[in-house]
């Protein structure tokens, strides 16, 4: 059996084809590109100027948008794909292939499809920025793309946990996914910032650092901002983390560990759930 004909590769290819033909993925790519362009154009408009911002400014502005959009997209598209019709699931999982291989293959295909959609969206906007504003700050744009891919991996893994329960209904999994998204992307930050304002400087810093590390959306957002702006990164969480780790290298390592944790642990949980599920 060659690598290309392994069950993981076959399932990945199948899922990639399905995702590429899905209207959701196509809409995601278009919206992503349009928003990137809109953000690039709006920076100068808001300050009374005209034209497009360069890559670095656009990437900084887009970081929050990526953290808002990518998790919900990965969760929704992941759950729609992984909790397919019962008949299709039964036929697929009655094949002589381990459930783990099927899950990994499907996740890989979804990841590649979403990565391609983001590459098309950000790439299209990137070409326009290059044409109008030159190549200055291109590395920041690449860091944003890398952060976007990490967020995709994390939230696809979480989608896999939610959709791997066997009897879990798609609507229920979607509802839980939206709660997860709202909690991690919006509610968590509000709660942490509100808590930090009630604490003195030291405990508030520790709370912010912990918050960055335990919330995958915050970890990715902070990593993107630190990657783009380095030690000059602003924002309470970034500053607290930099102080705590005494520099960007330590911060990067901690954030890397946090994001890796948020990919591997949900994946392990998803494997455990799918292997125990009644289909």
């Amino acid at each position, binding site marked *: 059996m060659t690598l290309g004909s392994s069950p993981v590769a076959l399932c990945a290819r199948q899922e990639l084809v399905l995702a590429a033909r899905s209207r959701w993925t196509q809409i995601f790519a278009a919206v992503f590109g349009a928003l990137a362009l809109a953000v690039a154009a709006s920076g100068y408009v808001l300050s009374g100027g005209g034209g497009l911002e360069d890559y670095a400014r656009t990437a900084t502005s887009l970081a929050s948008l990526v953290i808002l959009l990518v998790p919900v997209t990965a969760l929704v598209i992941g759950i729609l794909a992984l909790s397919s019709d019962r008949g299709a699931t039964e*036929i697929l999982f*009655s094949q002589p292939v381990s459930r783990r291989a099927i899950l990994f293959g499907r996740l890989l295909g979804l990841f590649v499809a979403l990565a391609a959609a983001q590459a098309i969206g950000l790439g299209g906007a990137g070409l326009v920025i290059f044409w109008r504003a030159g190549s200055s700050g291109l590395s920041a744009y690449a860091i944003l793309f890398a952060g976007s891919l990490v967020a995709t991996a994390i939230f696809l893994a979480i989608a896999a946990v939610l959709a791997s329960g066997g009897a879990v209904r798609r609507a229920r999994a979607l509802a839980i996914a939206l709660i997860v998204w709202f909690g991690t992307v919006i509610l968590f930050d509000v709660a942490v910032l509100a808590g930090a304002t009630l604490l003195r400087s030291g405990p508030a810093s520790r709370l912010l650092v912990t918050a960055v590390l335990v919330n995958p959306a915050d970890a990715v957002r902070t990593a993107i901002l630190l990657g783009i702006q380095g030690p000059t990164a602003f924002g309470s969480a970034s500053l607290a983390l930099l102080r705590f780790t005494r520099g960007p290298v330590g911060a990067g390592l901690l954030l890397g560990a946090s994001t890796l944790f948020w990919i591997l642990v949900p994946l392990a949980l998803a494997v455990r759930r799918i292997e*125990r599920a009644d289909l």
Partner: protein
Amino acid sequence: MISFEDFGKTYGRRAAVRSLTCSVLAGEAVALLGPNGSGKTTTLKAAAGLIRPTSGRVRIGDPPRDARLPAARRAISYLPQKVAFPDALTGREVLEFYRALRGAAAERVPEVLKFASLNGSSSRGVASYSGGMVQRLGLAVALLPDAPVLMLDEPTAALDPDGLCAFYGLVEKRRAEGHTVLFTSHQLGDVERLADRLLLLVEGRLVASLTQAELGQRLAERGVMRLRLDRDVPGLLGKIRQVAPTATRAGEELVVPGPAKDRPRVLDIVRANGVGIVNLVASEGRLDVLYRELVAEDHP
């Protein structure tokens, strides 16, 4: 080839199957019968490795392996009750995917497409298929590998007459090749035509296991011969009852329930008494009637 050893499955507080112990031998075609909710699909799914037994175990193949192991599933092809495939794929893409997954030869795809009468529509999206076409595509997927065990959950439910004929032909061919077939059906015609043995489940329990010979005997016992005689002879019914104890008179007819083998003796008695037969109608027992009796015996 398939063995259920004290197999039980509980969903929440509801027992779908209780302590099922039975086996399906290599080359046998066995039908699982029972009312809705009797545990047929759960039993089949356990054999396909899709569910975990709550108690006992289910083993497949030779040597026997736990049905949950991928290696055990190499021996099976499974068709679920509600067949579905991703709408965005064409019929051929579905088959190519499963062919590659099972490592079947490339020429199997056109063969099964032909069998399923989907040659002309294989490049169309599954979304455009009718229910019967999706069912036929499911059968085609199940036939791609040359697996020794075919498991089919209500395979004929959505088939049109052409599909039905092709399906019967296929199962008979597989049986002739020595393959094992385990299927559920509500179509008693499928059972009579395809099964060597039937297993009757009621409320998750096995209440009857009948071979085709035993089934034939049971059905024969439920046969009836109705005679209209040219005249009534006192004492004739009593003589007939010595051969067929349940014989009775219904209006102008003499009704003789019992197996066909007893009928010549009844006719001999009639002739020996000098009575002419005006009309004779014989009918064999019906599977649907027997089925209802068996279910009612267990669940009055």
